[in-house]
């Protein structure tokens, strides 16, 4: 058993809404081992990205957060902002969706890649430039020199994506969070992205938390899959088991809505977070819902190999 890198315990995140508070994430617990790749999947608004921001501690100050997030045993929520600045980047890195917008438009790419190394005191500027050149070369840029002099708006989405990966890889964080990295990317770039995601954990032994709604990507890259719905974990387990033999009707619905499985959409819409149904959150859309699903919410036992929040 590998050592646990990230442990999220009973995480609840509530945003102060216009009228009533919005529970974005409820009682989420999971653990990520070194070198492990976990995919958080679910529809938009199910709280996937909120978990990533809670782990990075980037949520606005007015957000109510309970539970704990531990990275290498360090309690993230107990750290000061100054301490977090030393943890972010070096111990955990994040790759964002829409790569073109995740780079500062007024700086050359070379500067944006060397700065983190210099700021964290890893090496001086000359050495940093050398490392950046090497990493850009290893990511498949034929002319790293040109790339370092270019501005982000000169580059395509795929190029920016690779630059963002370079920024994360240069600092060798133990935990890499990728927030919907496939958004805005051409289909032919997907293979390349998957390779980069796998390389992160294989080369550096880093843990990867992949946030996506692309089940195919999750199946191909992740060791374990966590399925989320309305801020709750509904099911989790090894990716091949969860996606081939789903334990929850929602996961079954998600798999069934894939084009290769018949393109059958799940009926209805996900509920508003301020107006959650009683009992099981999924029962209004569930084809197998029983009378007791309307009143009781099944528990989730995370110690099991393949737990699911369903009684049926």
């Amino acid at each position, binding site marked *: 058993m590998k050592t646990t890198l990230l442990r999220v315990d009973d995480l609840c995140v509530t945003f102060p809404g216009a009228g009533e508070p919005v529970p974005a994430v409820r009682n989420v617990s999971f653990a990520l081992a070194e070198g492990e790749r976990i995919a958080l999947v679910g529809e938009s608004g199910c709280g996937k990205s909120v978990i990533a921001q809670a782990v990075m501690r980037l949520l606005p100050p007015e957000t109510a957060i309970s539970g704990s997030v531990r990275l290498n045993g360090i309690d993230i929520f107990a750290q000061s902002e100054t301490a977090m600045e030393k943890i972010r980047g*070096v111990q955990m890195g994040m790759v*964002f969706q829409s790569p073109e917008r995740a780079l500062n438009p007024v700086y050359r790419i070379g500067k944006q890649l060397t700065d983190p190394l210099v700021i*964290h005191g890893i090496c001086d500027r000359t050495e940093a430039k050398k490392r950046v050149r090497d990493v850009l070369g290893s990511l498949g840029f034929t002319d790293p020199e040109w790339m370092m002099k270019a501005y982000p708006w000169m580059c395509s989405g795929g190029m920016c994506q690779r630059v963002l990966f370079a920024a994360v890889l240069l600092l060798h964080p133990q935990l890499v969070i990728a927030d919907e990295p496939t958004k805005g990317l051409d289909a032919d770039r997907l293979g390349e992205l998957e390779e980069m995601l796998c390389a992160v954990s294989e080369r550096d032994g880093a843990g990867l938390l992949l946030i996506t709604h692309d089940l195919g990507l999750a199946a191909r890259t992740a060791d374990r899959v966590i399925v989320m719905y309305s801020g709750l974990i509904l099911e989790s387990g090894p990716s091949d088991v969860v996606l081939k033999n789903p334990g929850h009707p929602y996961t079954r619905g998600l798999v069934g809505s894939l084009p290769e499985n018949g393109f059958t959409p799940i009926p209805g819409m996900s509920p508003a977070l301020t107006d959650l149904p009683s009992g099981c959150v999924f029962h209004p859309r569930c084809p197998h819902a029983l009378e007791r699903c309307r009143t009781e919410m099944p528990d989730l036992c995370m110690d099991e190999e393949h737990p699911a929040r369903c009684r049926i």
Partner: protein
Amino acid sequence: MNTAIRYFPAFPRISWKPYLLPLALISVFILISAAPEAFAPYRPNKLFDPYMELSAEHILGTDDMGRDLFSLLVYAARNSMLIGFASGALAVSIGVAIGLVSGWYRGLLDDVLMGATDVVLIIPKIPLAIILAAYLKPGPWILILVLGLLSWEGVARVIRSRVLQVRSAEFILSAQCLGFSRWYIMTREVLPVIFPLIVPKFVLMTAGAMLSESSLSFLGLTDTTMLSWGTMISESFTYSGFIRGMWNWWLPPALCIILSILAVTSIAFIHERGRRVVIQS
């Protein structure tokens, strides 16, 4: 960069042509204020016959005390320019600092700082400057402080709203995730992006300060021994320059005020228009 321009012919290049005239004008004024001895035929306190007509020796004549008006005009440039640029720079520095901190930290700090900004906004500037000028010993530095400390609120509000916009951009989030400090993100990531907003603000603040200085000087509320274009017009008004129809006394400083302010503001306007064109294309 050459390769970049070759690969990307649409690289926006700034045309310097429209800036030439206003920049040349401002350079001339700055040059004159830096070394008035080189341009003025006489020292400003050298006395001749009073109320002299225009002549080859005194191209703008002399005033009631017999001082050469052209020399006065040249020596007055320094204080007018100094007060304009220094209080413009002061106002913009305070405004940018407050706007940046307010927009970045939000929450309670933002409420307090924006409350202070609103208070400054409702203070009537010229009347307060008149009162302060009456109580404090008037001089160019007091004027710079008063004008600078009373006119930053517009800058602070504009900068704050832009910082609020920029801080939620993904590249700022990305910078946070790379572990950059708050100070670094504010000064190196946010500030360069909002810089195009600061330049015209500084220029307009400068022009506003020049105008306020002239108004206050004309009202006789600044140090009367302080040479500036405003005091020249004021003296011409007080010591019968207007009654005698001595346009050579009040018109040249008035023209200098108009020209310097026009030159400074047109830089801001050209700058803004240039940006719009870049954005549209």
